[in-house]
């Protein structure tokens, strides 16, 4: 498996492979999210206490999972790129960041939408939402740092170090925010609790998570392809590609 992975570590093969995969990934995204949303919004039963408002969790929870997971993915590839001087790994890490940040924003926004009918306010400082907010700051910090450094190699390396430091700190931050939240429990802030899961609800959650995964792959691949073309623009295969697409146009 690892041997096959390394053969696609060359930017040109990566570009070719992802080009083939992209239509399938988009198809998977559409199908899975259609199925997941249908089950979540129409098939799953109405909750006894929260009514129909709870259905937003079928977007909120998968988005939150993706936001946390993508941070680790980003940090992983960035460190691989730094440690092994693997250019493609660094490019992929940079491509992951905006998507991870987007999922964080979706999680925050849907969290607010969930909180509004339940608690009457658009924002509550519960442990989960506060942690998501801090995660958003970490993403934005990474994106700001790599954008501020002109030299590509220095930007990749500094970003990798920052992402690694962030990844190490994420458990510490989560723990401290949960601690903080339980301390201030008395101030009427309780975490918005998901209703106990019927099997249809779990099914919808799973489908939406898979849909978000497919979406993330698709978008990250698209962004990576653009970064590859830009960084490798002096390479022969890119020149040839530009020429053939120019001829075809």
């Amino acid at each position, binding site marked *: 498996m690892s041997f096959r992975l390394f053969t696609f570590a060359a930017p040109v093969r990566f570009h070719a492979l992802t080009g083939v995969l992209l239509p399938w990934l988009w198809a998977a995204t559409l199908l899975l999210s259609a199925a997941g949303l249908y089950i979540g919004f129409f098939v799953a039963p109405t909750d006894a206490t929260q009514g129909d408002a709870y259905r937003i969790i079928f977007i909120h929870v998968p988005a939150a999972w993706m936001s946390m997971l993508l941070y680790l993915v980003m940090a992983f590839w960035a460190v691989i790129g730094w440690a092994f001087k693997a250019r493609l790994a660094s490019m992929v890490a940079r491509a992951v960041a905006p998507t991870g940040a987007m999922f964080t924003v979706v999680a925050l926004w849907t969290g607010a939408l969930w909180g509004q009918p339940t608690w009457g306010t658009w924002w509550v400082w519960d442990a989960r939402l506060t942690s998501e907010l801090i995660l958003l700051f970490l993403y934005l910090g990474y994106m700001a740092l790599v954008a*501020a450094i002109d030299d590509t190699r220095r930007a990749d390396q500094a970003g990798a170090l920052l992402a690694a430091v962030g990844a190490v700190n994420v458990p*510490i931050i989560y723990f401290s925010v949960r601690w903080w939240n339980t301390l201030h429990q008395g101030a009427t802030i309780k975490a918005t609790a998901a209703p106990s899961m019927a099997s249809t609800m779990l099914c919808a959650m799973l489908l939406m998570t898979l849909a978000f995964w497919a979406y993330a792959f698709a978008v990250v691949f698209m962004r990576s392809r653009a970064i590859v073309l830009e960084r490798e623009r002096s390479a022969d295969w890119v020149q040839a590609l530009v020429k053939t697409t120019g001829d075809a146009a």
Partner: protein
Amino acid sequence: MNNVFMANVFVAVVLRDLRLAWRRRIDALLPVAFFVVAASLFPIGVGPEAQMLARIASGVVWVCALFAAMLSLGSMYAGDHADGTLEQMLLSPEPAWSVALAKALAHWLVTGLPLVAVTPLLCLLFGVPADALGMVTLTLLLGTPILSLLGGLGAALTLGLRSGAVLLILLILPLCIPALIFGTGAVAAVDAGQSAGGHLSLLGALLIFSVLGAPPATAAALRIATE
């Protein structure tokens, strides 16, 4: 013999930074002035009601100390980078993490410690009772070194960048949130008549973690920035 040498360079870096700060002592004390001014804005902004001020005091003092400590971070490595001293430091047989630790220590002595010294005064302005006042000061005594250590990492990452100063603050502040939580939590425990031991232990653990982890990371960042 090597260990003696190491201690020499470490001490030399600290003493040199202290000496440089002393020669520009007005500049060195600006963060302390900011600390007092910024904290004083809160009663003006939220009203002088005594009970509320006493309740928000630990949070306000901690956050203002965070901002004040961050103010002088931009210049931690900038001067040395500009005149070539940083390169010589990196070429020294002395390991770079030792230099990074020395710079953080010097920053804390010049900026952090004066902030801690002024904290009791600020607490009095907010009407904080005596036992909580002692706890605020103690938590900042443990917390400001963490800020200097993490700040050194941020300064090294953003070395030489145009928007470096603000970017540095944005990068480091989220990482300081656990220290903020445990520091203010300790004061809240004292206020509620409970033991602050748990919070202080966690804060101490963060400090140890930073002392062990931040200097090597800062050394790596310095090499990245000077390549």
